[in-house]
């Protein structure tokens, strides 16, 4: 037996029996309503994979996982790994002006406009981002966030930053971003993100270089726990990894309001499962009834 209420619009009966406590709702259909009484909730995710159409040797179709590309086109770690610090920033020290140049463009990028930006500390006259497009050098501004916009002329175009302009100064750079267009967008890490919408307020979870996947045989899932533990069990081709890869990602805070909250995941491929943990009302699937002298 259960308490159910009738929904006239859909001509269905839905569960309406809840208990108030801190617990986890497991959600497989989105968007979903969660009934929080707290100011925050934590979210966990289980990956998914969709392969649209039938692949063939001549026209392979890559399986799509759960996650959207971020707006940052530059895999910063692959270009600046030698300068990376434990806190995630990048540092360089030099006694005279020096430039770290990178050539990240392909033939597809020719004729397109990009904006390159990074945070620089301390700010100094010649410490800035610079673009060199087909021999035309464009200096960015010398400021806490140095920005330069340019149009790619060839695959040999470079973008770089100068540092070491005044003795043995250590320059710290961070939030390095390359985006399409002539406007510097708000920084976000390179890779994939999962936008979580609660009452139409979107908060992104950045999950690194790969989306969250489900194996093509349906036996394994990438999972992201509410504490940020990311366990990858599925390879990019949909096969199960021999050994799971465990990393840690930073989980944002998800804000809820007392009452009904609409939860959604704004990815093209929806996750297999969302878990939402919060203090509030949680559905009770069944209640007991007394049947022929016994409680069942």
């Amino acid at each position: 037996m259960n308490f159910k209420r009738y929904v006239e619009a859909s001509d269905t009966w839905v569960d309406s029996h809840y208990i108030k406590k801190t617990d986890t709702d497991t959600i497989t259909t989105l968007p979903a309503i969660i009934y929080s009484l707290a100011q925050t909730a934590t979210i966990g995710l289980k990956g998914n994979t969709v392969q649209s159409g039938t692949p063939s040797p001549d026209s392979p179709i890559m399986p799509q996982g759960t996650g959207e590309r971020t707006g940052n086109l530059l895999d910063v770690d692959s270009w600046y790994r030698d300068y990376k610090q434990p806190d995630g920033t990048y540092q360089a020290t030099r006694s005279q002006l020096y430039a770290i140049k990178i050539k990240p463009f392909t033939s597809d990028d020719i004729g397109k406009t990009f904006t390159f930006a990074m945070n620089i500390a301390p700010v100094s006259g010649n410490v800035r981002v610079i673009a060199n497009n087909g021999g035309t050098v464009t200096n960015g501004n010398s400021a806490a966030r140095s920005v330069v916009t340019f149009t790619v002329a060839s695959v040999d175009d470079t973008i770089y930053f100068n540092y070491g302009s005044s003795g043995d100064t250590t320059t710290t750079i961070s939030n390095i971003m390359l985006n399409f267009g002539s406007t510097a967008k708000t920084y976000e890490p390179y890779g994939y993100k999962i936008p979580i919408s609660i009452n139409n307020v979107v908060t992104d979870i950045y999950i690194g270089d790969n989306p969250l996947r489900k194996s093509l045989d349906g036996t394994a899932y990438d999972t992201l726990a509410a504490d940020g533990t990311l366990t990858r069990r599925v390879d990019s081709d949909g096969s199960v990894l021999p050994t799971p890869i465990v990393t840690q990602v930073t989980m944002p805070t998800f804000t809820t309001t007392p009452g009904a909250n609409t939860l959604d995941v704004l990815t093209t491929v929806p996750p297999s499962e969302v878990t939402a943990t919060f203090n509030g009302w949680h559905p009770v699937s069944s209640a007991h009834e007394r049947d022929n002298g016994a409680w069942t």
Partner: protein
Amino acid sequence: MADIFDAMMAATMMSGGAAGDSYTKAEADAKFAQKQDALNFAQLAAVNSGITSVDVAQITTNKNNISNQQDAIADGGNGYAIINSIRLYVNPPGIPPTGDIPDGSYGLF
């Protein structure tokens, strides 16, 4: 003379006396119970003879009020009932009860 007669009759009944006038203990108990019931009924009839239909309606009203009062043990009219120390909230569909609600409360909405 009457006193002597009564004494003789009592003595006859105590000793078993003539058929029709004597009773076993069980028979005496049954007769006593019958008389007691008759007396109770007479007393009840006498009491009820003063109760009107208005009084009966008032009794029903009082009963309902007491029942409602039990269900309305609530904080600020929040609309919950306390049953065996568990709060049961009943709200319109899709609108969860809010406020300072203790863990373990139940809700229907």
